[in-house]
């Protein structure tokens, strides 16, 4: 995963809300959209992007009373730290699984400039 992608995910208005929303329990896209005031299409798009980047996974697939199946997503992010010091943005992630960027400080300034 490149800095540009990380920066783009992190500086997205919705990604942060989605990660907060799915931290404590698996949630459906509809639930996240309703509770966190995210337009449904944007919510689907961003969730797929976060899933692709390894920040989210499908934790459960449930059947609704109407017989539709619904995916529940859960965050795979254990912790994240964003630090701004001396005009430099850095970020560090810890995931629930082995990931190349686990525990590494990543500088974001160059990516933010783009």
């Amino acid at each position, binding site marked *: 995963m490149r800095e540009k992608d990380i920066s783009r995910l992190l500086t997205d208005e919705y990604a942060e809300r989605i990660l907060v929303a799915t931290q404590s329990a698996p949630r459906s896209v509809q639930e996240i959209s309703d*509770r966190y005031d995210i337009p449904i299409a944007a919510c689907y798009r961003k969730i797929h992007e976060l899933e692709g980047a390894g920040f989210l996974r499908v934790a459960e697939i449930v059947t609704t009373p109407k017989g539709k199946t619904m995916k529940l997503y859960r965050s795979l992010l254990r912790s994240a*730290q*964003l630090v*701004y010091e001396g005009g430099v943005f850095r970020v560090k992630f810890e995931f629930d699984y082995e990931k190349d960027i686990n525990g590494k400080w990543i500088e974001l300034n160059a990516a933010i400039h783009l």
Partner: protein
Amino acid sequence: MGFESFENNGPSQPSDNEAEMNPLQASQLLTDEYSAKILLATYKRRISAQEISQRYGIPIAACYRKIRALEEAGLILCVDRILTQKGKRKNLYTSCLKNAYIFFENGRLRARFQLATGAVRDFGGDWNGLDLLKQ
């Protein structure tokens, strides 16, 4: 305001009163793409909204809006009003954010801003974030 109460109430509208910001709102002052660019653009520099807009590719209306939000939160300051060659007034802004820390763990989001004045503002309850940094 803690994360739990935030989750129950859903996101509230940004407030004029900086003390009422919840940790997610505080955090998004930094993680918003345009806000992050404006903070970099105004770091140790005096710069106008037009210049920021051109250099960082931020649409001018959005640039003004984000500048206002950052100004209200006390993260940037209008330090001068100069007269352009065309006789228009132009505000120059500079960042007054020294350090910022945003921590997300155990489902809780916390933010700490240290301003150039030495003032420290915490969002998301009591915490000693600097201890975490040293780990």
